[in-house]
């Protein structure tokens, strides 16, 4: 990566995100890697607010705010128009949260990826509907409290594996990234920028507000998600070639869960069960990457 990447900023210093917002950090790094020849399509998400109200905007690149479920489709239309105009240099970036990607926007995303639309789709994943006040999504992990999974009805269903769902489409490039690993994150965004066809970046983005976590813990907890194998860093090319980018030392999940208010109701038995799920998912990934016996 070129050194000047660190000096380029495509968001102004003012924005209206919460303190410690992982989505703001993710945006800053992705735009550094993509540069100014970028048009962003943003379906409704936390960033609809973070960018600021009319007539102000924290973004230095053109942005089209779009309906919640339309990220994949609107980005397809922007790309088609640029192609018609003979502009193949500009990168089309769809920027959506987990609700707009895993849930309500999944149909449009699936359709666009099946058509191999030439854009980079970034999902910044804060694991619930944070903008509307912490309601569960299909990205909310097993064990989590949200305002729609309160009390004893905490979420007892596993998080949807969005990367694998897109890999099943044989998407040209899919990768996970994390705000605590900026070099890896920017490297993947820069790599995706040079490719054509559909590209997907799944960025783990802490939400201190929704996760009931002190804002200064935002980056630390994101790093722990990688180091515990809860959120492994890996890439998949053309739906088959897996590369694991970070081999953790095998930290147990307990501390990650104990630090967050959203998991405070979990018992030791619950955490043991979660550890088994994490181990199972990790071993499955190792097998796909050819790093464990099948």
């Amino acid at each position, binding site marked *: 990566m070129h050194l000047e990447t660190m000096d380029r900023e495509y968001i102004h210093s003012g924005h209206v995100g919460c303190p410690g917002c992982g989505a703001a950090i993710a945006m800053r790094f992705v735009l550094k890697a993509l540069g*100014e*020849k*970028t*048009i962003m*399509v943003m379906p409704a998400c936390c960033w*609809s*607010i973070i*960018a*600021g*109200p*009319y*007539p102000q*905007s924290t*973004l*230095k*690149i*053109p*942005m*089209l*705010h*779009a*309906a919640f*479920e*339309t990220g*994949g*489709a*609107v*980005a*397809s*239309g*922007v*790309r*088609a*128009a*640029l*192609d*018609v*105009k003979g502009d193949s240099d*500009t990168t089309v970036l769809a920027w959506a949260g987990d609700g707009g990607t895993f849930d309500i926007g999944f*149909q*449009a995303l*699936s*359709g666009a990826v*099946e*058509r191999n639309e030439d854009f980079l789709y970034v999902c910044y994943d804060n694991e619930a509907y944070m903008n509307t006040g912490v309601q569960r999504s299909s990205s909310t992990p097993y064990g989590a409290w949200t305002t729609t999974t309160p009390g004893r009805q905490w979420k007892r269903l596993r998080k949807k594996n969005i990367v694998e769902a897109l890999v099943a489409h044989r998407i040209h490039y899919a990768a996970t990234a994390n705000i605590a690993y900026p070099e890896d994150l920017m490297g993947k965004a820069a790599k995706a920028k040079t490719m054509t066809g559909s590209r997907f970046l799944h960025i783990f983005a802490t939400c201190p507000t929704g996760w009931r976590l002190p804002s200064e813990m935002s980056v630390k907890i994101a790093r722990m998600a990688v180091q515990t194998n809860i959120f492994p860093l890996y890439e998949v090319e053309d739906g088959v070639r897996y590369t694991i980018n970070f081999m953790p030392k095998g930290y147990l999940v307990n501390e990650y869960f104990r630090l967050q208010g959203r998991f405070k109701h979990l018992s030791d038995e619950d955490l043991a069960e979660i550890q088994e799920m994490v181990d199972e998912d990790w071993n499955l990934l190792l097998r796909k990457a050819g790093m464990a016996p099948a």
Partner: protein
Amino acid sequence: MRKVIEGSHAVAEGVRLARAQVISAYPITPQTHIVERLSEFCADGTLDARFLRVESEHSALAALIGAASTGVRTFTATSSQGLALMHELLHWASGARLPIVMANVNRALAPGWNIWADQTDSLAQRDTGWIQLYCEDSQEVLDTTLQAYRLAEWVNLPVMVILDAFFLSHTYEPVDIPDQETVDRFLPPFQPRFHLNPESPCTFGQMSPPGVYMEMRRSIQAAMEDALVAFADVEEEFSRAHGRRYGPVEAVHCDDAGVILVTSGTVTSTSRQVIAELRARGEKVGLLKIKLFRPFPVESIRAALGRARKVAVIDRNFSFGASGIFAQEIRAALCNLRGHPAVFGYIAGLGGRDVTTAVIEEIYIRTRDAEAPKEESIWVGLQEVKHAP
């Protein structure tokens, strides 16, 4: 060049001549022939456009919102359930002031599952900020498609070109297809007033607090008011180039008529025949065809209907809990006119049932012979329904 073509193909010919640049559509009967023909045009190079074969009507319009925001000429077509699925984005397209053109083939909404003509699908979208143009025949369909682009790009509002299922979409008629040079003079390449551009980065459609939102809404209404004036100018230019004009409304024998029928779409053609026959028998009957529904041409309607004693509105649509939608609008347009005519509302032809000359004549006779409307809506030709014991 005069050719015998299907109504659906008249739409496609219009889109080809308009040199649409991005087309995005999802198939639904009876719209399919439009997008199939456009697919052929794109495949054989007749039309130099990108065709996005999306996975839903919702995505079809969403993709055009992206494309039109990037500054190119766009087209989609749909019908019924597909239009209903687009509802959210109909608001979005007009709010974003995008000159998208769409053909909607009027089809009934389910259940019962019905693919035949019924205007409730498009009329239910009357509050979405789209200009709506209802067509009577295939020539008008083609001409209106061309006019729609001029109008849309003039006032920066989306335009819906509307045609009846099967009666128009699947019927072959002789149509004069203009040559490309004439159309190019009438409709030059699209010059967007704004578009997504990395060299001049702007944010479109962002959060708009109470302090600014109301003015944005008012500007859409101002554009609708402009559209009434612009439509006349577009028609004037179109008629100079192509020798045809339709008007926002067309008044036939309204000057001396005691009873005026109000129609839209293909019911108009049948009504023309009926009033010609009635006139020949000495009946003082007139006809008002409504082509432009949004913006609603209130002044033209008052001028045409104001002197009549009675107005009979034929609605191939219905607003449950109220009445036929054209009847509502006509009543609202006339209510502040001193001594305005009595408005009779007739519901006919729902779900593709034929509105025959006999049906229209019955509507005329019932209106002529009644002192005043006894009910808000008179359902014509209803059969007796036998319920299970």
